[in-house]
């Protein structure tokens, strides 16, 4: 399957060509070439997936296969960085997900970004991102993953800051990059720590199940925990940054400053799941060697899911709602991984988590693209400017509804199946976790339908802006991806995912736990029902609730003030208390010392200058004394 290399090279090539040609080509040319390139690699991914899943099953599990690898950099005799392609169930699955969503976004953007300044640049960056993300998922070793991890971060920076003349966009891009960079610091530390003891970066070696390499690292302890746990925890922190888990989630809502298709691609479907993918990739190590870290991951995911679900309930910017929703769903995925064991039925959480990754990518992208469609029509992001759009934008409306039902967990949409499996795994691990997660699922249904009703139903009085622009359905290039994604959402639930992706690469048949299913459907319906009561028609119930829970509402609207804490830390602590005194110290003390030396030399020189006065008699005195002194020494001492 050497052709798999083309899947990576084509977007890279497209980036270079489109980037260098920039405005020398007509916008349409750049857009078309980029879209065609992505279409080609999407097809190639499907072919790869087909070939892989049909030919690589041996000895009860899917065999990992490396069609391409080259030596890139050598650190020591044992630690080398290779760049290569690793094909195994999860990487092939991710290839399919990334290319599919990317293709939908490329198509959609042809219409959405039409006429925008920097159209060519946009497509160049999209290709760069696609290349980086694909490189990340097929990484054969952890260092290669880190390399593409950083590249993905930069692509995200460039795309969030696409409208670079807007200060908000520039600031958001910077925030995203720095927060993820901060997390990457820990990621790097974890990589260094792990690789020092295991003397390898290679995933195949690390996850081979050979416990010997963890011998030294497993037995050392540092401040109470084994060094291996520390290393894996540090690596997880890196993943947490990219996946916007609490408290490193702050960049994602701000990242909505970027164009909406970008949010669909990067901040819903692909980049933000990089952390989940990382944990999944190293899962054998987590599950077998450091289960306590895995449990920590579960609780982090759980808290994040709850935290962001609450915030999502009160946001009025539709993209922010979706952003917090994404954070929450990633929390779900992390919980899925965290509660999982290894192998067959124990590994249910793993399979469920990745299944949810797959389905979520599709319907979240659909939600974002649909939101983009609405924003494009109404020229506003805020819920307050929308309402009654279901008649004017039927396709958008229906596809959006499909996605909402999926995310709420209503059968037969895909979201139901994947979320259900996660809930089942959670219950298996610990019933309280299961119930909390179910509660969050109910909240999810609630806020998603709050969003849905506010956009498409609520007959609130039209704002002046709304009345000016006649609202109409989006053009075909925008609605086509919506329809495709909706179709996928309809059928994806029926994919026997356990036949493809499991924790030990073996086969596993999914069975539906009817208890969990029933309770989750009921909770979801309850959430939808509440939302219907409050938001389907314009009434004062939401306002009264807001008054009743004023404190909580206020805190949630301000995202529980986490951003303020970070601002305080960076401005007051880093800039003012560290940087400024340091700069002062350098200027006045260290440099001042050098200046002091110079001044002292000057003063001494001025004083000594008097010796060379030019007065002969002074010289004669010196002569006299010197002669007497020497004579004295010669006569009396020597």
């Amino acid at each position: 399957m050497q052709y798999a290399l083309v899947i990576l090279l084509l977007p890279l090539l497209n980036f270079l060509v489109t980037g260098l040609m920039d405005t020398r080509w007509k916008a349409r040319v750049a857009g078309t070439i980029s879209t065609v390139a992505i279409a080609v690699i999407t097809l190639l991914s499907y072919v790869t997936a087909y070939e892989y899943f049909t030919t690589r099953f041996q000895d009860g599990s899917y065999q990992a296969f490396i069609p391409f690898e080259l030596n890139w950099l050598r650190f020591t005799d044992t630690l080398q960085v290779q760049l290569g392609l690793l094909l195994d169930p999860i990487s092939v699955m991710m290839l399919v997900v990334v290319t599919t969503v990317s293709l939908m976004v490329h198509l959609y953007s042809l219409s959405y970004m039409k006429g925008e300044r920097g159209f060519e640049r946009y497509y160049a960056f999209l290709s760069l991102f696609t290349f980086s993300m694909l490189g990340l998922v097929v990484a054969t070793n952890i260092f290669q993953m880190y390399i593409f991890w950083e590249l993905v971060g930069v692509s995200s920076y460039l795309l969030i800051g696409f409208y670079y003349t807007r200060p908000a966009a520039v600031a958001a891009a910077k925030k995203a990059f720095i927060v993820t960079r901060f997390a990457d610091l820990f990621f790097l530390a974890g990589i260094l720590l792990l690789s020092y003891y295991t003397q390898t970066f290679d995933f195949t070696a690390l996850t081979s199940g050979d416990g010997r390499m963890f011998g030294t690292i497993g037995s050392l302890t540092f401040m109470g925990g084994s060094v291996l746990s520390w290393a894996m925890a540090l690596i997880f922190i890196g993943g947490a940054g990219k996946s916007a888990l609490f408290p490193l989630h702050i960049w994602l809502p701000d990242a909505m400053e970027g164009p909406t298709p970008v949010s669909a691609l990067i901040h819903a479907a692909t980049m933000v799941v990089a952390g989940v993918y990382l944990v999944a990739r190293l899962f054998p190590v987590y599950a077998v060697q450091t289960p306590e870290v895995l449990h920590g991951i579960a609780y982090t995911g759980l808290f994040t899911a709850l935290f962001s679900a609450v915030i999502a309930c009160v946001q009025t910017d539709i993209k922010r709602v979706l952003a917090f929703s994404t954070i929450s769903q990633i929390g779900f995925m992390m919980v899925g991984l965290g509660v999982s064991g290894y192998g067959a039925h124990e590994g249910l959480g793993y399979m469920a988590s990745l299944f949810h990754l797959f389905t979520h990518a599709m319907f979240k992208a659909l939600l974002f693209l649909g939101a983009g469609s609405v924003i494009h029509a109404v020229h506003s992001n805020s819920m307050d400017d929308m309402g009654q759009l279901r008649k004017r934008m039927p396709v958008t409306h229906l596809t959006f509804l499909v996605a909402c039902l999926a995310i709420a967990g209503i059968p037969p949409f895909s979201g139901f199946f994947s979320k259900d499996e996660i809930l089942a795994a959670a219950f298996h691990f610990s019933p309280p976790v299961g119930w909390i997660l179910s509660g969050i699922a109910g909240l999810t249904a609630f806020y998603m339908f709050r969003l849905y009703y506010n956009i498409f139903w609520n007959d609130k009085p039209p704002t002046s802006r709304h009345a000016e622009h006649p609202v109409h359905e989006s053009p075909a290039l925008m609605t086509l991806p919506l329809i495709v994604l909706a179709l996928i959402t309809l059928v994806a639930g029926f994919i026997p995912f356990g036949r493809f992706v499991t924790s030990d690469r073996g086969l596993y048949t999914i069975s539906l736990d009817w208890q969990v299913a029933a309770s989750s459907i009921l909770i979801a319906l309850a959430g939808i029902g509440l939302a219907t009561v409050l938001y389907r028609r314009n009434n004062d119930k939401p306002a009264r609730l807001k008054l009743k829970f004023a404190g909580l509402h206020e805190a949630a609207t301000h995202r529980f003030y986490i951003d303020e804490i970070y601002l305080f830390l960076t401005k007051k602590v880093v800039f003012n208390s560290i940087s400024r005194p340091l700069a002062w110290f350098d200027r006045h003390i260290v440099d001042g010392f050098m200046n002091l030396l110079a001044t002292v030399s000057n003063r001494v020189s001025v004083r000594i200058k008097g010796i060379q006065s030019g007065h002969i008699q002074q010289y004669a005195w010196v002569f006299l004394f010197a002669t007497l002194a020497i004579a004295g020494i010669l006569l009396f001492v020597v």
Partner: protein
Amino acid sequence: MNFLSLFVVVPLLMLAGLFPARTMRQIRAVAVTGASLLMVLACWLVWMYLAERSSGNTSEMLFTAETVWYPSLHINYSVGVDGISVAMILLSAIIVFAGVFASWKMEHLPREFFLWFSLLAIGVFGFFISTNLFTMFMFYEIALIPMYLLIGVWGTGKKEYSAMKLILMLMGGSALLLVGIFGIYYGSGASTLTITELAALTIPIELQRYFFPLTFMGFGVLGALFPFHTWSPDGHASAPTAVSMLHAGVLMKLGGYGAFRVAMYLMPEAAGEMSWIFLILTGISVVYGAFGAIHQTDLKYINAYSSVSHCGLVLFAILMGNETSTTGAILQMVSHGLMTALFFALIGMIYGRTHTRLVTEMGGLMKVMPFLGVSYVIAGMASLGLPGLSGFVAEMTIFVGAFQEPDLLHRVLTFGAIASIVITAVYILRVVGKIIFGPMADRHHEQLTDAVWHERLSVGVLIAAIVAVGSFPYWLSEMINESVAPLITHILR
């Protein structure tokens, strides 16, 4: 005459050729010819070196030659290169080339400017090809002295002060260095000054304890070792563009190169004993420079503090004393040299247009100067260590290498050094976000023009080199590693 001596002869001819040059055209012609010739020579040297190595020649220094100069003190003009020197010569050639094009429009006394510039080149190349301690020192001084005039006459701002401070502090360093060299010479029995021969002799440990710190600090002053780095911010800020490029790009690397080749290689026992002191100092440099850069508002000062941080990393890695970290140090010398030259070139071009270096007075330049804007973003990305650009390769090699030392002090310092990647990201993105992106800060800037051909050439060459090293690092790191390995084996024995 040895092929290597051409690296000194060509700039010398450039110098001579400038005397009869009268018009700007002639001056530029001479300068370009010289610089291009040096580039060609450097590429040829790399080619020849790699060919020689792959044909099985494993001697430590290649293409050696020796001419006796002053026999009673064993001062000879001896030359030779190994992988490390070749990398540095390549770096110097690229930067001299880029520097010439960046100074295309030098209006004030151009002939004299390029004259001193050639002298600088002589010193730099001579230093890297020398294998005799005395001639090394001589070329070091030759490289140092033109700095005073170049900054003092062609500089901006408080140039006389900066020039004086720079030259006095660096001369102070050379004084320490000279004492160290004498110590090495007499301590080893006063029989030779050639580095390879000196390595085979032993210097008594009591003497080493005095002379190692002196020599290390002597080179360290040039390599921006805390607390002797303060010449750097003012010096770079006041210097003209090409001088900053050459100084930060190449001259500061002389410090790192010398610290490794002379201080650590010839006095390994003392190095092992006393490295922890300097490790702490360099660790402070790395973090200190980065934090200092956050506060600055003048572009050149930001870059100067950034250089303090990155050059500190070089010395940090050298002191770690293992193969990987030293290879990383050399890679960082190459990478940072290219990056900082790129930065200073761009800052000079921006300053030439906006007539301000203050971050607060600029904004949204990407709209009017896309080439310079994109180049600045690339430079920034290289500085914060983006994979695909040279900074990543160098820094990662250093971090992996530094991490190989298992004791607590080394680990703590390593973590501190790694943390600098976050701080670097902060100040780089702040600057980029403010001056390149964002809304236009000054209405007058809307009239500005983008880079012209010679500026594009200068910037393009540097970016190409950065991308080449960053994307295809294998040949370079292997070349350096091959030469580092025997040196480290000697140091660690």
